[in-house]
């Protein structure tokens, strides 16, 4: 009941004219960014971070969060109408959504995606209302050893849960930690890895790195192929769903939303993995599994519900424990730090207005997005006719001026460009970028809590085993590291067994 009373106060904050305006601005920008291939919500949030300087912290955070989940709605448009996922988490929507569009059912695909996203988003926020305070209360029992292992878990779980090479993910995370070490040692006060450069004394700011890795790099990749897209035409009346389509999809939305929330809460998993798992699971439950890949409306419903639920669920560890679940919540955390607010379990008690205002704003934001996506879908669809070639250079300009705004120095512009080049190479080499950003955000917590723990224990690592919560966390960390290794070894052995040729006597028979 405390949670509901707090939520009511949150609504009082979220429904002020200023916050309503900025929720609308955030979800609108998120919708547009999500629809545009070549730039994702994390890049959009990083680009707009400088705009939040001097804003009220709650207003800044509700706007940035609006971009994050607004991007999930926007990614559907290009997926369905152009067969190009506007956002990575809309890949499965592109598979079936575009097939539906070719058959004249683009409106149905867009409708069910919007309705599914709305219901799953509201459901996820409702669970967040009760889960976050419980997690924060539990987090108050944490001390340095637990925070160190939690930060480490944030990095190892990212490596364990992402598809693709675990080694590459850990390498990127280690690289991020090394970058974070540049500057002044927080305890001893000595220069570290500055190589005598004055500009590096304060370390490398998060913002120009994020702008470079996400904004600049993604635009560079998009410049490789600049064909003008021709979206399939769609009319307002096409958005109506038939009764049969709604009956087919309502359970898909429930299943997708549940999977999305459970996956989204885990650090490193994120909306993309959630959408994929929900799609695969839905194929098992669908009355028409053969339709999957050829225009399955329930497939679209499940994946879109999952990605939006996951985007909201990622805020549970961030608000409750101060551990970001993905790139978007990492940018949000850095926004909190820039506003002078310390993320962590104390956030709910030290800044209740901000936390509950944010949670209430997500209900409001989802209502706004439903209104934007249903009747205004043809309007957003017309934006897709603007050639990307006219958008790419302005995005680069906004990226660089945003980087400059951090310190009013061309040095940060140089940092953004350098990391833009690094981000481009990472995309080409199939290296995930989110672990780098996660590592940058978690590094201060990781280092300070590790050094404090070892100081308390006078150098003994047993402190991580003697405390019950940290012992459990240590086991979980080891599992996240070892289970993919065991899986890889088992898979390698299975492949070797199937390749062993039969004995000559058996062949002769």
């Amino acid at each position: 009941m405390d949670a509901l009373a707090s939520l009511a106060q949150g609504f009082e904050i979220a429904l002020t004219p200023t916050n309503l305006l900025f929720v609308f601005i955030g979800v609108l920008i998120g919708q547009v960014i999500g629809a545009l291939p070549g730039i994702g919500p994390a890049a959009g949030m990083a680009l707009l971070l400088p705009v939040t300087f001097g804003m009220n912290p709650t207003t800044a955070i509700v706007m940035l969060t609006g971009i994050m989940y607004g991007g999930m709605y926007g990614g559907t448009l290009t997926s369905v109408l152009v067969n190009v996922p506007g956002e990575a988490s809309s890949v499965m929507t592109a598979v079936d959504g575009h097939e539906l569009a070719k058959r004249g059912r683009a409106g149905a695909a867009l409708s069910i995606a919007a309705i599914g996203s709305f219901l799953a988003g509201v459901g996820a926020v409702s669970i967040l209302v009760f889960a976050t305070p419980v997690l924060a209360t539990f987090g108050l029992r944490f001390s340095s050893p637990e925070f160190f292992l939690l930060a480490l878990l944030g990095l190892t779980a990212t490596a364990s849960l992402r598809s693709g090479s675990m080694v590459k993910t850990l390498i990127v995370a280690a690289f991020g930690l090394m970058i974070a070490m540049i500057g002044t040692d927080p305890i001893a006060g000595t220069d570290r890895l500055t190589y005598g450069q004055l500009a590096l004394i304060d370390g490398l700011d998060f913002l120009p790195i994020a702008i470079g890795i996400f904004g600049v790099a993604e635009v560079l990749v998009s410049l490789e192929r600049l064909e003008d897209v021709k979206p399939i035409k769609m009319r307002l009346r096409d958005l109506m769903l038939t009764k049969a389509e709604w009956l087919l999809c309502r359970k898909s939305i429930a299943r997708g939303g549940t999977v999305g929330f459970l996956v989204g809460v885990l650090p490193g998993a994120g909306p993309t993995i959630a959408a994929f798992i929900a799609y695969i699971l839905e194929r098992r439950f669908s009355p028409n599994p053969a339709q999957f890949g050829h225009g399955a409306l329930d497939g679209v419903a499940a994946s879109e519900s999952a990605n939006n639920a996951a985007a909201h669920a990622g805020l549970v560890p961030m608000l409750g424990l101060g551990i970001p679940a993905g790139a978007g919540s990492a940018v949000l955390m850095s926004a909190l730090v820039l506003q002078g607010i310390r993320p962590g379990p104390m956030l709910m008690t030290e800044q209740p207005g901000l936390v509950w205002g944010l949670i209430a704003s997500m209900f409001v934001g989802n209502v706004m997005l439903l209104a934007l996506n249903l009747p205004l879908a043809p309007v957003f669809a017309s934006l897709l006719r603007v050639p990307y070639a006219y958008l790419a250079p302005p995005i680069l300009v906004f990226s660089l001026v945003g980087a400059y705004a951090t310190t009013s120095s061309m040095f940060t512009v140089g940092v953004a460009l350098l990391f833009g080049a690094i981000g481009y190479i990472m995309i080409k080499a199939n290296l995930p970028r989110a672990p780098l950003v996660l590592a940058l955000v978690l590094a201060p917590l990781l280092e300070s809590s590790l050094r404090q723990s070892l100081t308390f224990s006078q150098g003994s690592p047993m402190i991580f085993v003697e405390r019950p919560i940290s012992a459990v966390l240590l086991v979980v960390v080891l599992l996240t590291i070892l289970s993919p290794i065991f899986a890889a070894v088992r898979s390698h052995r299975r492949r070797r067994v199937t390749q062993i040729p039969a004995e000559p006597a058996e062949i002769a028979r």
Partner: protein
Amino acid sequence: MAVAIAVMLTALVALLGTGDLPYFLVDEVPGPAFLPLLIGGVAMLLGAVLLIQSLRGGEDDELDWPGKAGARRIVLCAVALITLAAAAPFLGLVPGFVLFLLFMLLVVERRAFWPSVLTTVMTMALVEGVFIQWLGISVPYGPFGF
């Protein structure tokens, strides 16, 4: 393989860069070199694992290079960005951005003249309105007074 070598070199730079810093301070307090040495060591190990995987043919880390037209656009864009960053303190940030936008739209992307000019005007209006006027960001001015 290139990724593995790059990581190992970066780790080596980090390890050498903290070589003269103390690993521990007094009373077993971890010093400034503690975590860089730990992270550098882990990165070296991971780099070695990736290198072995590459040599065994298990990891496909070939870079997906763009075609000729795409490579041209990227190289020109990179040159334009570096030139902008170098020239902006002398030319002014706003004139620098204008020239960058026109170069990208007309030369790199070979777009039509008037839509490119319109795009440039609208972009700079947003930069001026949002960043310079509203947020009050002080940008480098050039010889033209803006």
